[in-house]
């Protein structure tokens, strides 16, 4: 008995590889395969050009706290006078015997010092680099030194709520109030780039259009041309034929996705901001993008193939589904993962996996966004409220740090209400179940199809 079943399995494997190999060779001979694959790579490289351009230009540096300006005209910038204890508004009071610092030294001098943000309910971070909080003087009163009331002077209190997964920042005056726009912007845009290209470019565009082009005709074309019988009039069930054809399709799409994600990971890893030569911290996100794209392309491939089996005009159904899924993709991005409607799509679950990957890899992602929104708390140079830099919370129009808006736009939470790993398992399982269901329905339809050609 075991010998016979061993033989059956061996035969199964032979039939599977025969059809899968045949499918792969068939793809190779078709021009459309090469066109689609090369256009995809070309589009990604086009995006990378913009990324490269961004990463090699310096962002505009703002002096958020205005201390590079010399108010009293005594030749010393306000920041230097504060540091050395003289009155920045009195031209007669200036540090003598010291060379005046160039104003540029006081731009972006008090950058964020927020390392190791954890998920503790309360943390104290921040350091007053330019000393305009710590030092006594007119600028900062004692109560303002502990504005956030946590009994630690000149710090920033970060509260985290596990329930709503939200960070709240409460700052003391003049702490970390002149952040480095270039550093923050590059980091934020880099992460936003990975998220946007990964979610919208790879998981959505490739995840829908690769199957549309490559998988819809897998069975339908053979049925129309009459060459299906070479596969069917054999001791092999129709469900198997469908499955093995899909294996051949995956055999070309999955390696392509893996290679493309690897290439993109390399490019963004080398070009990305940071101290070292290569950013290893993003690799996890690329893995999740790759994984999501593979699952999504499998599900769509099966669905579109089944549409083709069901109907000669199956392409129409496929196009309508593609439009629905685009809508769901936009909903997922815009609504930030808070809606249930994306559970009724395929793409929603795929995007969720990328969000989970980002959450696991970039633990400080939500705080980064908050940092950008807070931007030091000072009004921007252009807002006309330049002089009211004493307020920790700005009362005028101000701009968030560059890159905050795109990052906030493209980052989402998975919205499932469970932990990250569990959410990943759930999302992957949903996609696998969707693919399996599509196969089950597809082979039932295929089995009942009478072939007249």
């Amino acid at each position, binding site marked *: 008995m075991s010998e016979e079943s061993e033989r059956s399995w061996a035969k199964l494997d032979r039939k599977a590889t025969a059809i899968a190999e045949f499918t792969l060779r068939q793809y190779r001979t078709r021009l*459309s395969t090469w066109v689609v694959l090369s256009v995809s790579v070309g*589009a990604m490289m*086009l*995006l990378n050009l*913009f990324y490269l*351009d*961004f990463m090699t230009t310096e962002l505009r540096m703002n002096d958020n706290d205005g201390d590079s300006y010399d108010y009293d005209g005594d030749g010393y910038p306000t920041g230097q006078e504060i540091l050395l204890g003289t009155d920045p508004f009195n031209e007669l009071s200036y540090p003598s015997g010291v060379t005046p610092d160039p104003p540029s030294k006081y731009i972006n001098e008090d950058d964020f010092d927020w390392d190791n943000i954890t998920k503790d309910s309360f943390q104290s971070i921040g350091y007053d680099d330019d000393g305009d909080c710590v030092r006594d003087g007119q600028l900062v009163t004692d109560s303002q030194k502990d504005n956030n009331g946590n009994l630690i002077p000149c710090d920033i209190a970060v509260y985290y709520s596990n329930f709503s997964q939200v960070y709240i920042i409460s700052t003391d005056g003049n702490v970390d109030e002149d952040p480095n726009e270039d550093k923050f912007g590059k980091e934020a*845009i880099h992460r*936003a*780039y990975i998220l*946007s*290209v990964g979610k*919208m*470019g790879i998981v*959505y*565009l490739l995840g829908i*259009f690769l199957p*549309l*082009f490559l998988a*819809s*005709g897998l069975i339908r*074309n053979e049925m129309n041309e009459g060459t299906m019988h070479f596969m069917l009039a054999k001791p092999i069930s129709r469900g198997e034929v469908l499955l093995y054809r899909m294996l051949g399709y995956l055999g070309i799409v999955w390696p392509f996705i893996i290679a493309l994600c690897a290439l993109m990971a390399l490019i963004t890893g080398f070009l990305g901001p940071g101290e070292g030569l290569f950013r290893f911290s993003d690799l996890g996100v690329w893995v999740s993008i790759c994984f999501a794209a593979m699952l999504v392309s499998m599900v769509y491939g099966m669905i579109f193939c089944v549409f*083709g089996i069901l*109907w*000669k*005009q199956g*392409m*129409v*159904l*496929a*196009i*309508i589904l*593609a*439009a629905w899924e*685009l*809508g769901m993709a936009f909903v997922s991005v815009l609504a930030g993962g808070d809606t249930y409607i994306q559970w009724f799509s395929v793409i929603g679950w795929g995007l969720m996996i990328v969000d989970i990957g980002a959450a696991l890899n970039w633990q400080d992602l939500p705080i980064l966004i908050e940092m950008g929104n807070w931007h030091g708390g000072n009004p921007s140079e252009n807002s006309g409220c330049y002089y009211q830099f004493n307020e920790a919370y700005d009362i005028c129009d101000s701009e968030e740090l560059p890159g905050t808006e*795109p990052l906030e*736009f*493209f980052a989402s939470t998975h919205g499932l209400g469970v932990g990250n790993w569990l959410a990943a398992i759930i999302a992957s399982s949903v996609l696998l179940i969707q693919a399996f269901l599509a196969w089950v329905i597809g082979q039932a339809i295929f089995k009942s199809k009478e072939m007249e050609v």
Partner: protein
Amino acid sequence: MLHPESPVTGQTRMDSAWGSQTGDEDVHAKVTQASVDAGQIFEQEYKPWNGTLNPRWMRNWAILRHHLLGIVFKGHRPWGVVTRIVLLLIFLGSLSSAAMVLLSGVVGDSTLASMWGINRENMYGHVLGFFPRNIIFYPIIAAILVGGMISEDRSNGTSALYFSRPISRVDYTSMKFLSIAIILFFVIDGTLAVYYFAEVLVMGRGWSWILDTFPMFLLAAFSGLLLAITYTSIGLALSSLSKGRFFPGIGLLAVIMGTKTLAAIIEALFDKTILYVISPFDCIAHIAQSLMSIESTYQHPWTWSLASIVCINIGALYILTARVSTLEVTRE
């Protein structure tokens, strides 16, 4: 008759094909009875055909009519049932703006009227609004229409029927182009016209109002025409490139939605709108914005978008005519 239940077994005698004697007595080759004694030469008189051919426009009109009437009537080009249903649904969907005007007139609600009434922005939105028209309605109907336009003829062999008649390939292509463009034009601009005239009727607009708003209407209609023509060019170019019936429609969707998505990503990230020049929809939207004096959402000059859309159309039409004129009219 024999009983069918008993199996028909039997040893048939297999003989070599090279003429053995046994078993061949039942088969006999007969010599033809009537023999021709002498050979004969048949004189041919080649006369030019002095008949009159219908004028070219009539032949072309026949092709156009065949394609257009096929949407509704039997006996013409058989568009699929699904195509027709989707076309109807999208047409009805595009009429939503007119329906809103009618509703506001019936209900008499002034806020509804001000939201949906005819004005510069609303007419622009009718033609070039992103959601739902230019993400769902117009791209889908364009993709479905161009789907099998040329590839179906090739695979069914009906292109041989066309080209064995006095129809040039340019005519064939032009009429196919026109048929799709006309249908798209109806869906986009026909519904725009209904919208406009619904407002005139329901709101009781006078001639001065019409004089004011008609130029805008014309500009919006022109943008819609540009949209119809561009989608048709790209779609037909794709249809001439591929033998399948899937590839053109999906390719058109990929071009329209894919370019827009990529450009949108770049805009969101880097605040640069330059990549929109590769998106046909955005090029037309930009042109329309500048024509209709609507605030531009793009940073680059509209002349760039104009140049781009002209290049896209020229490129697509070039591919289309080159492919069709070299089409080999065989069934494969």
